[in-house]
């Protein structure tokens, strides 16, 4: 697939950096303190009871679309809106290319879900709803920047030039991660929640020692924010002033648990407790997400240390193909978020601004279908791994012990070839 080059051809130039550093964070301080107050009040109301934040107005508070702290550049209806601290300055080609990525990764995601239902994948973690958060943040990265994903960053993988087929290999069980993290500057999917945020921080510490001008972005979720590792990453990044952007996709749910089960105040506020800025951005707004991430990366490069970006978004599908969201959330929630769909708003923007015409969208649909067809075909054709490969790459310097274990197993397998009866058992 040549999309890698394409992306580079029409990839956005850096828009000019904007406004006073950190002012975004400062601006939110007061608001947050008052939120803290209401949080406390709300909990006072229930006295010594152990009702959880989820049962309080906090839910509403957190979900409120009219959140003053929410950085937005593209309204759900596709209208461009201005923000004092953030702006983007894209060419029409760049706008189209951003939309193209949104469409293609959603199509890949849909195809993967289908393949899973057909038994071609063991499991799939859909990104539907989070395309803008992922494309917006990933497109803000420079080639030399390093990204550390969770298991749902298919859009980021796409922007880092990881062949979607290779991505599927992991979910098909062909391997545990097929791409070269250092070739793509995209680490392997990390399934243990939060662990990668420390890897990202350490990698950023390494960049400091190399005198590099690059930066690191660490992806994690609202649920992950509760893990000790993530908070230790905040400690290390702040203390060493490491060039790392902590990018939290708050998709409102950690499997069945609402984000209020992880924090009773907005998650971007967590950063203030560690001494670095936090920003909440509309994660369904690819332009705002790009601008906010780009600014945070620029701060990191220029020695201003870490930033926490909370991309406020929504997981429109199931947690994974094993999950049944109807057990824990109501349809109307999904319906409400559909109105904020990241693709729709970009599409109507392109239309209204006459940045793209029918033919563009038609061609894009065709491209997406072709991509999906190729993917489906090559996924089915993926070669099975060889049994003896189990013993490969346990160590760089192989051990005698494993060499013998491998030999014994090879002999054991041969015994079935020889004796038909063996296989017959």
């Amino acid at each position: 697939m040549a999309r890698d080059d394409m992306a580079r051809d029409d990839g956005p130039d850096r828009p000019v950096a904007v406004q006073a550093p950190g002012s975004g964070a400062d601006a939110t301080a007061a608001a947050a303190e008052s939120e803290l107050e209401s949080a406390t009040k709300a909990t006072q109301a229930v006295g010594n009871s152990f009702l959880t934040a989820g049962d309080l107005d906090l839910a509403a508070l957190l979900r409120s679309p009219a959140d003053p702290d929410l950085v937005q550049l593209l309204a759900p209806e596709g209208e461009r809106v201005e923000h004092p601290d953030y702006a983007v300055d894209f060419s029409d080609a760049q706008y189209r290319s951003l939309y193209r990525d949104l469409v293609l990764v959603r199509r890949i995601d849909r195809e993967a879900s289908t393949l899973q239902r057909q038994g071609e994948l063991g499991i799939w973690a859909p990104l539907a709803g989070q395309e803008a958060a992922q494309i917006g943040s990933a497109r803000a990265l420079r080639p030399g920047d390093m990204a550390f994903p969770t298991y749902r960053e298919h859009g980021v993988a796409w922007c880092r030039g990881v062949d979607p087929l290779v991505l599927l290999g992991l979910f098909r069980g062909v391997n545990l991660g097929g791409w070269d993290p250092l070739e793509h500057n995209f680490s392997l999917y990390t399934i243990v929640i939060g662990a990668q945020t420390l890897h990202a921080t350490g990698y950023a510490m390494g960049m400091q020692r190399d005198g590099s001008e690059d930066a690191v972005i660490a992806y994690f979720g609202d649920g992950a924010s509760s893990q000790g590792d993530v908070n230790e990453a905040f400690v290390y990044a702040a203390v060493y002033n490491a060039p790392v952007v902590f990018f939290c996709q708050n998709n409102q749910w950690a499997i069945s648990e609402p984000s209020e089960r992880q924090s009773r105040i907005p998650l971007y506020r967590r950063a203030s407790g560690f001494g670095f800025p936090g920003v909440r951005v509309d994660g369904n707004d690819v332009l705002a997400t790009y601008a906010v991430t780009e600014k945070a990366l620029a701060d990191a490069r220029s020695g201003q240390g870490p930033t926490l970006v909370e991309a406020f978004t929504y997981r429109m599908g199931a947690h994974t193909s094993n999950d049944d969201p109807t057990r824990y959330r109501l349809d109307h929630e999904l319906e409400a978020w559909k109105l904020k769909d990241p693709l729709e708003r970009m599409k109507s923007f392109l239309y209204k601004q006459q940045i793209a015409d029918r033919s563009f969208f038609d061609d894009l649909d065709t491209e997406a279908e072709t991509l999906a067809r190729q993917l489906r075909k090559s996924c089915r054709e993926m070669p099975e791994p060889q049994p003896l490969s189990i013993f490969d790459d346990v160590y760089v310097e192989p051990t005698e012990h494993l060499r013998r274990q491998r030999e014994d197993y090879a002999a054991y397998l041969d015994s079935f070839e020889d004796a038909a009866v063996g296989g017959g058992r």
Partner: protein
Amino acid sequence: MPKSTIARALNEGLRKAMEKDSKVLIMGEDVGKLGGVFRVTDGLQKDFGEDRVIDTPLAESGIIGTAVGLAMRGFRPVCEIQFDGFVFPAYDQIVSQVAKFHYRSQGKVSLPITIRIPFGGGIGAVEHHSESPEALFCHIAGLKVVACSSANDAYSMIQQSIASDDPVIFFEPKRRYWEKADFDPAAGAPPLHRARVVRPGADVTIVAYGPMVRTALDAAAAAETEGRSLEVIDLRTLSPLDMDAILESVRRTRRLVVVHEAPGNGGLGGEIAARVTESEFYRLEAPVLRVAGFDTPYPGSQLEDNYLPDLDRVLDAVDRSLDY
């Protein structure tokens, strides 16, 4: 006899325990509305409320650490670790606090905490969802470790574990959760820390636990067609080990094969082999053989059938044992 599954039996056992003792709490990730990713706690929050069935923040050390405090306050927390591979963030609290607090306090504080861990492979999952970490808990003094393999045991052992004043690591054979099997809640249960002969035999003793018990029984059935009589012991208790039961069998068969999914190196098989050999040195006709996962990380799921011990590998070990 009525049929059920291990998952349902666990659910009923938990319900029984909660009805019997109001101090019993369930806590973990997604154990509430969702009923756990395996539905083992299905319906319990609805019936016992949010204060007794607690959806926790996504932090395992927090689950176990707060359970310690709750236990000190007089509660009996039953903590669910969502998958075997995610117990490690809580390992420090388990090893240095849960296991040692009773000893540290010279017996003044006891921590009746049950930690449920669905374990083992064979479900076509991604990384960290198919681990068998039991040996990492058996080596820790102060913990008791058990594994159930049948619906009846699941039902009784979970209640016994919760009733135990000692902390219990409770391993559940996740790939067997949904296998239909006879279920008789009324059937009396042996003490928690006793092994059980699940199939009597004369030629070779097979010791297994959790998901491998089914595999061992299948192997025994296959062996019978070849005229070999295997005795299968379901260990049930991994720490303390029920050596009396194992030795009694080995004294008769003089041959022992231990089967587990966990990597052989440093697994339970070595400990059992060492103890049995020390006790029955002159009686053994063959060295204790081990059939275990390979000494590699758990591979991608397309290779797990190669990685995991199966009927053929058990029978191969039986052949080798009998060749001595």
